[in-house]
């Protein structure tokens, strides 16, 4: 893997990661790096541990063994939270708030990229005109787009995307790919899980295949 021009150190480096649940091994030991400007596609069947891996990297779960480095430094909570934006299965949107209010809250919580506004983000993901729609009234695909808007506003360089193509139509899939490409061009990186080959980022992508441990 050629070193990225943006930084000599990989954005994310994982060494010897293992995880068990109820004393059953879920994955491991894993060693991989993600450099700035590249995407890592995590593939595996259902139950292979893709979601678990992303949650471990995000900091929601603790690995049983192994180390995670971010920008060459050991990933402590404060460093990790500033460096990572996590898009999980649940949309994290409050049903009783409208799209703009949801975005405003999440930006207040995580911080916002300079010069980007929630209103612009909505336009970017194709939800222009839905500022006042309550999240409850949005379809599954629209809720996903709202989550993508939040992602776009995030200042974090490393994106952990768990099944980002789920619930989206063809246009939505293209949107995700466009966002990932732009993010990588800006020096960010992305880890994407998908359990089928139906969609993948059209950029410099490496594969990480997870198999059920023997």
């Amino acid at each position: 893997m050629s070193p990225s021009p943006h930084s000599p150190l990989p954005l994310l480096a994982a060494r010897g990661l293992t995880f068990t649940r109820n004393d059953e091994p879920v994955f491991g030991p894993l060693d991989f790096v993600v450099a700035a400007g590249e995407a890592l596609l995590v593939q595996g069947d259902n139950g292979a541990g893709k979601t678990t891996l992303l949650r471990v990297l995000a900091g929601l779960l603790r690995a049983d063994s192994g180390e995670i480095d971010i920008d060459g430094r050991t990933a402590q909570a404060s460093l990790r939270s500033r460096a990572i934006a996590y898009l999980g299965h649940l949309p994290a949107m409050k049903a009783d708030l409208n799209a703009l209010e949801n975005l405003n809250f999440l930006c207040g919580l995580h911080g916002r990229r300079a010069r980007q506004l929630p209103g612009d983000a909505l336009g970017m993901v194709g939800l222009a005109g839905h500022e006042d729609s309550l999240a409850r009234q949005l379809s599954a695909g629209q809720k996903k787009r709202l989550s993508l808007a939040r992602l776009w506003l995030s200042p974090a360089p490393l994106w952990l995307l768990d099944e980002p193509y789920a619930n989206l139509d063809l246009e939505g899939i293209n949107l995700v790919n466009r966002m990932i490409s732009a993010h990588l061009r800006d020096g960010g990186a992305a880890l994407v899980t998908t359990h089928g080959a139906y969609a993948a980022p059209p950029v410099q992508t490496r594969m990480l295949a997870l198999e059920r441990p023997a």
Partner: protein
Amino acid sequence: MNGPSLLQAGSALLVRDLRLLWRRRGDAFQPALFALLVVVLFALALGGEAQALGKVASAVMWVAVLLAGLLSLDTLFRGDADDGSLEQWILAPVPLAWLVAVRVLSHWLTTALPLILAAPLLGELLHLPRDQLPVLLVSLALGTPLLSLLGAVVAALTVGMRRSGILVALLALPLYVPVLIFGAGSVARSAQGLDAVGALLFLGAGLVLALVLAPLAAAAAIRIALH
């Protein structure tokens, strides 16, 4: 790049919660309504005679407020746990304990404050002696945040569970006992003509300790529960 400051994140959460409450304004009255039900049931069971009711009024009110608070604990974290918001709190660049503290504050404002405001009315229904009302109100003002903070630890421990019901009550009871004792006890002491300040100071001290320690414990519990 620097993340949001504590104040920014905290006020974003507070604004969100107040907005959410406004969208479901009716829900704010539920704890007060429940306390009213408890008071009515006690009055009916005790026979409605003014003297008899007045003797137990402050104790009944404390129990009613405690039970109403217990019932409302479920709404503290469950909504955010269900839609994935709690995960984003853990991932935020501000300490989880801080977010928990702000959440408990907004929860107290929306569930316990209406109770305290309704207390004089409930007191009238129970023929609470007038001179006991100020002490009762102070004890509630100090005690209900303490109940919210201790309850937050219990709610955090059970946040992942589906039908936690009676388990929450069982877990909360031992933690609530000292608050109930000093809260209701302060009014009892003043009724006996003794000084209630000591008991109230205990509540106050407990509140200060809980303000610091309870969010930390609840944050640890949330991380465990979301594992």
